[in-house]
């Protein structure tokens, strides 16, 4: 038994977690069993260890019983390790004389057999009790937080986060890959349930971003590399050439008028291809910054080199620079907020609804543009044939709550479908049919909005639509699209002929969410949205310190929730900045120079170049500032001269020994387990 600190005096505490643990694990038996293990001075069970009295129990015992090691068996260390370390520290002990045993996520929540679960809990407890004897006092490590913040994504979440931070006096870099900020919200007509126009509430915020002295706005730009750690990230931003000098362009749009293309010819992506643009264009009138872009894919000069370049002539400020090249900016920031948003479900993946086959099947986002006063039809809602529809069917849950596509609920579609139903009726007086599975109107004044729609005589048919077809069964259906669905309220299959079908497409992770995740070293959840540190208690934090997430990149959410989350992410970043420093996990490696043979095995293994060879001493040397604490070098050192704090060989071997029961004979309590 190692004895670096006199005699080892361990306190063991197992948590009931209400019934979460105690229902499956016989916590009394575990506590009784552990009390018989060597070095254990006290072994207790308590209803909620993480509560104030629970923590106080630890602190008090350290004081009264002179404990020098603490083991808590409760939930995952990823949840409460810091909590208990702090409690240990409050008791006057170095916080790293602590080991946590996960008997909730790893035991009670995944096993049913009480006996097997209890035995497993005993094993894990014994392993920790043995491991903790090898623990050492460590110094807390702090790093300085660079006060600048990077916000990635200029939708409503990114805009709100950037403004919040900038208004609190922080310098913010806002990087957006499109030529303008605004995101999806800029494409919407009105917002539910208040029906205020999206542009009216968004565009002032967009111009505030542009005008803010603390915000450096980089549109048409993408983050290309991220290095460093919390407090000190070095980020490279690739600024794509827009072939227009941002400093010189004033957004007069003369170049667009004078383009050799007299008529717009290319699909306008802001209007989802429902209108056309020229090779030189402004995405939409309120685009921020109001600077035109030249698209090299369609511009004649780029395609053939033989354009008259009338745009260049037209610009009296000589802002057009067809030789502009991509540039890379390198910035230093301390924290990062990711607000990269979502993409809408591709309706072609549900071929039974005929999107792409029947011209009058639209997606909800297309209808947003059609209804919008600055949209391709000037807000005049018409079918492809240019007629006002007399009947419209809205199909809910397209690409949501569906085993064949996405299983999750996209949360926003019910409400925006209700909104569109209202607007369609208002604009055209059409009969509107909603085909829904459930109406999910869980939000402030959302249910009231639904009630209002019912009073407006919008039709609701409960049932998933089987298909949209143009094959008429009766003469009245001729020339219409027919929506066939079971009305589960009355148990009959109905055929509703309509002039226009709107598909309420769901929300999905961005196509490149996986790449972005790798770039920022964070995780994604099963569906591909960015994973938060804890679904309830750390909803905007990620597992990478200093990187926060906001908006729909974390999961489907509407505007109020995105804004709320963006504010929370900004507050988290601000908290770090204002504190000025952050504590790092002291799990870095260290070298025992005396035993290092200078074999250099470790040096090429470190991806962070923290290890080098000291020619003078003939030994390896470690730059602790660069070490991230993975322990790969430790595993490779043939002489065991490199160790990792908190994960020293002795501790891991101790844990294995403890688990395999080679150290302690199991007490007779084990046999008593029911």
């Amino acid at each position, binding site marked *: 038994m190692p004895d670096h600190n006199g005699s080892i005096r361990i306190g063991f505490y197992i948590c009931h977690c209400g019934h979460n643990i105690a229902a499956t694990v016989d916590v009394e038996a575990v506590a009784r069993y552990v009390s018989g293990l060597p070095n254990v001075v006290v072994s207790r069970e308590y209803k909620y260890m993480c509560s104030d009295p629970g923590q106080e129990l630890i602190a008090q015992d350290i004081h009264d019983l002179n404990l020098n090691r603490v083991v808590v068996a409760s939930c*995952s*260390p*990823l949840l409460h390790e810091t909590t208990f370390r702090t409690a240990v520290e409050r008791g006057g002990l170095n916080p790293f004389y602590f080991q946590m045993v*996960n008997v*909730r*996520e*790893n*035991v009670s*929540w*995944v*096993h*049913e*057999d009480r*006996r*097997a*679960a209890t*035995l*497993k809990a*005993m*094993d*894990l407890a014994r*392993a920790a009790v043995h491991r903790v004897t090898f623990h050492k006092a460590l110094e807390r490590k702090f790093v300085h937080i660079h006060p600048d913040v990077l916000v990635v994504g200029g939708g409503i979440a990114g805009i709100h986060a950037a403004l919040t931070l900038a208004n609190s006096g922080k310098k913010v870099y806002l990087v957006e890959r499109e030529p303008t900020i605004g995101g999806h919200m800029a494409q919407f007509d009105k917002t539910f349930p208040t029906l205020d126009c999206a542009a009216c509430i968004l565009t002032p915020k967009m111009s505030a971003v542009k005008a803010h002295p603390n915000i450096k706005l980089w549109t048409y730009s993408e983050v290309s590399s991220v290095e460093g750690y919390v407090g000190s990230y070095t980020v490279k931003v690739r600024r794509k050439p827009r072939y227009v000098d941002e400093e010189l362009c004033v957004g007069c749009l003369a170049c667009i008028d004078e383009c050799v293309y007299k008529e717009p010819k290319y699909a306008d992506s802001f209007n989802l291809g429902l209108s056309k643009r020229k090779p030189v264009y402004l995405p939409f009138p309120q685009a921020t910054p109001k600077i035109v872009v030249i698209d090299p894919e369609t511009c004649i000069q780029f395609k053939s080199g033989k354009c008259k370049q009338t745009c260049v002539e037209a610009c009296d400020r000589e802002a057009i620079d067809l030789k502009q090249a991509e540039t890379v900016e390198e910035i230093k920031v301390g924290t990062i907020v990711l607000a990269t948003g979502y993409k809408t479900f591709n309706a072609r993946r549900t071929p039974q609804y005929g999107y792409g086959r029947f011209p009058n099947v639209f997606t909800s986002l297309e209808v947003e543009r059609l209804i919008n006063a600055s949209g391709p039809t000037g807000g005049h809602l018409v079918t492809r044939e240019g007629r006002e529809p007399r009947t419209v069917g809205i199909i809910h849950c397209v690409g949501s709550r569906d085993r064949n596509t996405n299983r999750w609920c996209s949360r926003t579609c019910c409400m925006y479908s209700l909104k569109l139903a209202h607007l369609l009726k208002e604009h055209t007086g059409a009969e509107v049919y909603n085909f829904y599975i459930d109406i999910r109107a869980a939000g402030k004044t959302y249910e009231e909005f639904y009630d209002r729609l019912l009073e407006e005589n919008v039709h609701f048919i409960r049932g998933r639509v089987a298909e949209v077809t143009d094959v008429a069964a009766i003469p009245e259906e001729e020339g219409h699209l027919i929506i066939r669905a079971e009305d589960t309220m009355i148990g009959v299959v109905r055929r509703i002929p309509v002039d226009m079908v709107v598909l309420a497409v769901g929300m999905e992770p961005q196509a490149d969410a996986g790449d972005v995740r*790798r770039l920022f*070293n964070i*995780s*994604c*959840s*099963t569906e591909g949205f960015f*994973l938060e540190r804890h*679904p309830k208690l750390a909803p905007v934090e990620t*597992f*990478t310190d200093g990187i926060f997430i906001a908006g729909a990149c974390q999961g489907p959410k509407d505007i109020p929730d995105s804004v709320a989350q963006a504010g929370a992410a900004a507050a988290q970043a601000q908290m770090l900045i204002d504190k000025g420093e952050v504590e790092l996990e002291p*799990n870095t490696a260290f070298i025992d120079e005396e035993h290092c043979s200078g074999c250099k095995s470790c040096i090429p*293994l470190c*991806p*962070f170049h923290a290890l080098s060879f000291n020619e003078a001493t003939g030994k390896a040397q470690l730059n602790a500032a660069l070490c*991230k*604490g*993975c*322990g*790969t070098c*430790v*595993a*490779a050192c043939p002489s065991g001269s490199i160790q*990792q704090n908190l*994960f020293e*060989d002795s501790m*891991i*071997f101790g*844990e*294995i*020994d403890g*688990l*395999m*029961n*080679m150290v302690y004979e*199991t007490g007779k309590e*084990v046999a008593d387990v029911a």
Partner: protein
Amino acid sequence: MSPEVNSNGWEPRIIAFFCNWCTYTAADLAGVSRLRHAPNVRIIRLMCSGRVDPQFVLDAFVQGADGVLIGGCHPGDCHYMEGNYKALRRFRLMRRMLENMGIEPQRFRLEWISASEGERVRTVVNEMVETLRPLGPLALPQQRVRWDEELHEHVTDEKEVKSHAG
């Protein structure tokens, strides 16, 4: 490990080394999602699968584990850039070595399980338990006792041992 040898007889005993960022988080997710699985695995949390020293694996077997499972991030996803590749390299060498020592390769498994793959933790654990069942106990500690006995049977006195060794 406690004697799970109960009325049902022998149960495989597996030691798992899970990396903090992916597989341990996935195991937590399995917990949060209440994905019930076999109780035969004891998880040891490391920061990275690259921290798995081959000696940990040997030690686990020597101490009586019937199987060892390593869980790390998918290739390209390592929180420390390339620790999982180091783990893979060591895993391949180790498995060959273990095979030469007479330890079936099925007893030693490496899996890439990302933080979102709670379901995969359940599948892998259950699969591994089912794979180990027909193999039976490895029981190296007991075997060591048997080997010692065998040696003693073959060896009559100290001298002979020395001459063999020489």
